[in-house]
C-alpha cells in the first residue's frame, strides 16, 4: 500500500521520502501576442508558443530540491488535450519522474480541480504543489478549490516551504506582509517566486531531454462533465491614447495634467 512505500524509511531518518505531485499549466508564453478567434469565443493559438506556466516552474524546482534532500518521486500532471504533452515532456526533461495527462478540454477551474482531486484520491501524495495562478486565465482558483475538495491544508502565495518529518512550515505573502503557517502533510501549496529563487530555476539539459523521451506519460480519461461557468466572449482591452510627453524642465505641467485631466491627484 502507498503508505508503506512512501514512508518506508520513516524509521531511518526524520525525513521520509516524498511522493510529490506538481500541477502544470500549459500557457501562452509571456511575450506572446494574444489574439482571439474571429467569433471572439476563444484564444486563437495560431503563432502562439506555449510554455510551462511561470508560477509552476518555481514549484517544479522546489519539488526537485525536496527530492534531492530526502528522496522521493515527482509526478507532473496536466488536465488538457494532447497538445499539452510537449509541456509535460519539458517538465520531465527538467527532472520530474513521470507525467499524467487527464484527457479533457476543461472550460473552468472547478472542472480541473475535480479531475485533479479524482486522480489524487486514487494515488496518495504527500505534497501537492500548484502555481498560485496560471498566466492565461489568471483565475487563482484551482489550488484553493483542490485543497477544499481534498480537505487538506492550503498555503497560497507561498514564498517559502520547509519540511520536517511530515510537518510543513510555509511562508505566504499576505497584503502588506507575510504569514507563517504550520500543517501536517499532505497539503496543497499555491506557489510563486520565492518558493525557490529565480536563479535556481532548472532548465532542461541534453541528458534530461533524452531521458524524458522514455519516462512514463500516462493518459487518463476524464471523469467530470461540464462545469457551471462558460466564457461568452473575449476582447482586447481598449488601446491607450497616445502618451502625452511633458518637457523635463516643466514638471508643473505634469502636476497640472495629473490634477485637471487625469484627476489622479
Amino acid at each position, binding site marked *: 500500500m502507498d503508505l508503506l512505500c512512501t514512508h518506508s524509511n520513516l524509521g531511518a531518518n526524520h525525513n521520509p521520502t516524498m511522493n510529490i505531485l506538481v500541477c502544470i499549466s500549459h500557457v501562452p508564453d509571456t511575450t506572446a501576442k494574444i489574439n482571439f478567434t474571429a467569433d471572439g469565443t476563444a484564444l486563437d493559438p495560431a503563432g502562439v508558443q506555449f510554455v510551462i506556466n511561470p508560477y509552476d516552474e518555481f514549484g517544479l524546482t522546489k519539488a526537485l530540491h525536496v527530492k534531492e534532500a530526502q528522496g522521493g518521486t515527482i509526478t507532473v500532471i496536466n488536465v488538457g488535450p494532447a497538445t499539452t504533452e510537449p509541456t509535460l515532456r519539458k517538465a520531465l526533461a527538467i527532472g520530474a519522474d513521470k507525467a499524467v495527462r487527464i484527457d479533457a478540454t476543461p472550460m473552468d477551474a*472547478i472542472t480541473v480541480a475535480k479531475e485533479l482531486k479524482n486522480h489524487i484520491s486514487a494515488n496518495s501524495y504527500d505534497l501537492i504543489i500548484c502555481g498560485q495562478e496560471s498566466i492565461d486565465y489568471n483565475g*487563482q482558483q484551482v489550488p484553493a478549490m483542490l485543497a477544499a475538495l481534498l480537505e487538506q491544508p492550503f498555503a497560497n502565495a507561498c514564498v517559502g516551504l520547509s519540511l520536517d518529518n511530515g510537518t510543513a512550515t510555509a511562508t505566504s505573502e499576505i497584503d502588506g506582509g507575510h504569514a507563517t*503557517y504550520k500543517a501536517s502533510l499532505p497539503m496543497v501549496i499555491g506557489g510563486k517566486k520565492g518558493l525557490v529563487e529565480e536563479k535556481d530555476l532548472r532548465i532542461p539539459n541534453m541528458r534530461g531531454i533524452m531521458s524524458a523521451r522514455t519516462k512514463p506519460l500516462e493518459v487518463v480519461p476524464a471523469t467530470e462533465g461540464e462545469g*457551471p*461557468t462558460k466564457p461568452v*466572449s473575449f476582447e482586447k482591452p481598449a488601446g*491607450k491614447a497616445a*502618451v502625452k510627453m511633458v518637457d523635463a524642465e516643466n514638471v508643473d505641467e505634469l502636476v497640472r495634467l495629473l490634477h485637471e485631466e487625469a484627476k489622479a491627484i
Partner: protein
Amino acid sequence: MSILVFVEDWNGAYKKASFEAVAYAKSWATMNGNRVIAVTNTSAPAGELAGYGADHIIQIGLGSTAMGIAGQLKELSAEVSGIVIAGTSLGRSLAPALSALTGGALSTNTISLPLSVSPLQVKRGAFSSKGIETIELNNDMPIVSFVPNSIGLEPVAGEGNLERREVSSNDALEVLSTEVASGKVALPEAEAVVSAGRGLKGPENWGMIEELADVLGAATACSKPVSDIGWRPHSEHVGQTGIQVNPNLYIAIGISGAIQHLAGVSASKTIVVVNTDPEAPFFKAADYGIVGDAFEVVPKLVNALRAFKAAS
C-alpha cells in the same frame, strides 16, 4: 433572497476594498431586488457598512485562515443567491475554496459590475491584462471576486440590522505568525504607487523615491531586476511574478517596461513614465511621459507636488 458579502477587517479596521465589496453587493442586489447581508468579524465596527448598502450585518468570530472562513460562510449561505468577495490576498484563497465547498459558480479577477443577473455575466481580466473575458455563471449561487479598486465606492443612505451569530471554524492549518509592515502604505491597496528600476543606479538613491511616495501618500515599488539584485525587498517587486497592482496613479522611474512588468501594472488608471531613453517601451503603455534623468526630474516633481498640495 439575498446577496451575501464578506467584509474583511485587519485588526478591527476595514480595508477600502471591504467597502467596495459592500457597494458591489448593493449594486448587484438592486438589479434583482435582493437584500445585502454583510458578514464580518465581531471585532470590527458594523455601523460603517450600512453606509455602503448593507441591509443586514452578521458578526461572527471569524476564523484565522481562508479555509476556516470558507467553512463559516458556507454555513451562512443557505438562503443566499449570490456572494461577493474582494480579491485581497485573503479573498483570492477564500473565494475559490468557498466555490468548491458550495458548488457556487465563480468569477475571479472580475473588473465589472454584473452586465446581466440572470444568468449572471461579468467581465474579468485574463491573459495578464492582454484580454478581457465576459463570463457567464450558470447556477443558483454565483460567487464574484473582484479586483480591488476596479469598481469604485458608492455611498448610500441606509441602516443595517445587526446580528451576532456563533459559527465555528475548522482548519488544519495553524497560523504561527503574521507580520505586516506598519506605518507604510500596503502595496496591493495603495491608490498611488511610485516604482523605480535600475535607472536609479543603486539602493542608496531610493531616498528621493520615498520622498515622492510620501508627498503622494503612495506605496513604493520596484522592478524585478532591482529586487533580484537585492536593492529592494522582493515584497516591492511588481510585475508578472511579483505583485499585481491597479492604483489610480502609477509612476515608473527608470523602468524600461519589459512585458513582464507591464503585465503587473497595466491595469493602473493613470501611468506616468520617467526615463532617459525616449525609446523605452514603457512610454507606449503610459498616459504621460517625461524623457529625462530621474536625478533631475524627481526632486523637481517632489517640489512641484509640494507646492500643489500647499495651494490646494
